[in-house]
């Protein structure tokens, strides 16, 4: 967990020899793929990734990096919300992963229309996306929080399904508004605020008058979306799950 947190600065700051750096770097790696970073590096990464994500919205890795480097307040908050909820607590213990290798796609496809599993698979196929493209975290300096952000990323597609939003720019922005209210992650807030910059005037209007108010209302009304053990609810109808969580029907 947190043992190495206070010493997460890269020892290479003084330019010591290579062998020392490797040993210390290895000791500081809290989970596979972890890259320890100093506060200065995190600040530079946050600024750089924000800029890059704006310039090239297809750089999903930059959105991911932005989330990791700015989530130091929101992530512990989310983790605590999960800990204080029975289902969320179980998720933190069992650490389920949503991956093509762990999902039984044919079984999900066979579920009745309107069920979470069937609609989720339909969403993946319609938008030609896969749950395996979510980036593993690199710059989060706590391995439990790293899982929390990983879970958030893997649940994102389920958010699309529950909100009924496609993966075009408009749909993504709406989901970002919902997630911003739900998680408080600065990356979601920035994405929600700056995403619309690239939309046409007509879409902006629909966004502002219908979609965003609905997303905000739903986000506030709904319980924490990370506290739902989706893998055990594939058979549940989407409508019923929406009611249970508190998401209002999409306009």
């Amino acid at each position: 967990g947190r043992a190495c947190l206070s010493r997460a600065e890269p020892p290479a700051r003084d330019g010591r020899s290579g062998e020392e750096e490797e040993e210390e770097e290895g000791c500081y790696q809290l989970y596979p793929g972890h890259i320890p970073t100093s506060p200065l590096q995190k600040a530079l990464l946050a600024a750089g990734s924000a800029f890059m994500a704006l310039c090239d919205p297809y750089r999903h890795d930059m959105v991911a990096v932005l989330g990791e480097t700015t989530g130091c307040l929101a992530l512990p908050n989310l983790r605590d919300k999960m800990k204080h909820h029975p289902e969320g607590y179980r998720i933190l213990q069992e650490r389920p992963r949503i991956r093509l290798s762990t999902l039984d796609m044919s079984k999900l496809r066979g579920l009745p229309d309107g069920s979470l599993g069937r609609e989720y698979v339909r969403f993946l196929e319609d938008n030609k996306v896969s749950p395996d493209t979510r980036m593993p975290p690199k710059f989060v300096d706590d391995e439990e929080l790293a899982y929390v952000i990983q879970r958030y990323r893997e649940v994102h597609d389920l958010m699309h399904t529950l909100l009924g939003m496609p993966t075009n720019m408009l749909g993504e922005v709406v989901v970002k508004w919902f997630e911003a209210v739900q998680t408080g992650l600065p990356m979601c807030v920035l994405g929600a605020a700056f995403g619309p910059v690239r939309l046409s005037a007509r879409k902006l209007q629909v966004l502002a008058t219908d979609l965003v108010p609905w997303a905000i209302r739903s986000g506030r009304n709904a319980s924490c979306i990370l506290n739902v053990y989706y893998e055990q609810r594939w058979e549940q109808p989407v409508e019923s799950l929406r009611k249970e969580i508190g998401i209002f029907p999409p306009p």
Partner: protein
Amino acid sequence: GDIAFRFINYVRSARERQLQRKLKNHQNLSWQEISESYQEDKFKLLGDSQVVVCDINKEMLKVGKQKAQHLGYSEGLSWVLGNAEELPFDDDKFDVYTIAFGIRNVTRIDLALEEAYRVLKPGGRFLCLEFSHVSNPLLSRLYDLYSFQVIPVLGEVIAGDWKSYQYLVESIRRFPPQEELKAMIEDAGFLKVDYQNLNSGIVAIHSGFKL
């Protein structure tokens, strides 16, 4: 690759100047004769000069070839796949051996230097351009700060690759400093070995002769 282009440019321009000077001295040549002499020398503008570009990585060679084609270099260039520690060339073949930002990536630098010595003709020159060490303490600290704090971040943001750029700055620190590299070059048999610092030692050019 880039050094090869510069070399070819240099030889071409040197020969063009030579040709111009030759023609200037002949005041009353007819247009016919002038055009003939240009044509004749065009094919030999490079003369007998040849450049061999060698790299251990096929992809790098491919990129080099594409660049050469794009820039219009066709003659006098050959591309060879090879390992600096074990060069596929005969002894005493080359007048000059240059290696730019390459020797840092060689596992056994001493072997690469020995090979360089072997393939050079007597009188030939070895030139090496590489990242080196900054002696000025203030500049060194700023350079270290920039190297370790900024460069991997730039690698991640621009190329999505933190690890390669972390490796880069670490490998620069591991590389022998100027005097040590000079000693290694002397050990390989080179004489009149010297170095020149660029940018206070961020980069250095080492030179040695096979005599």
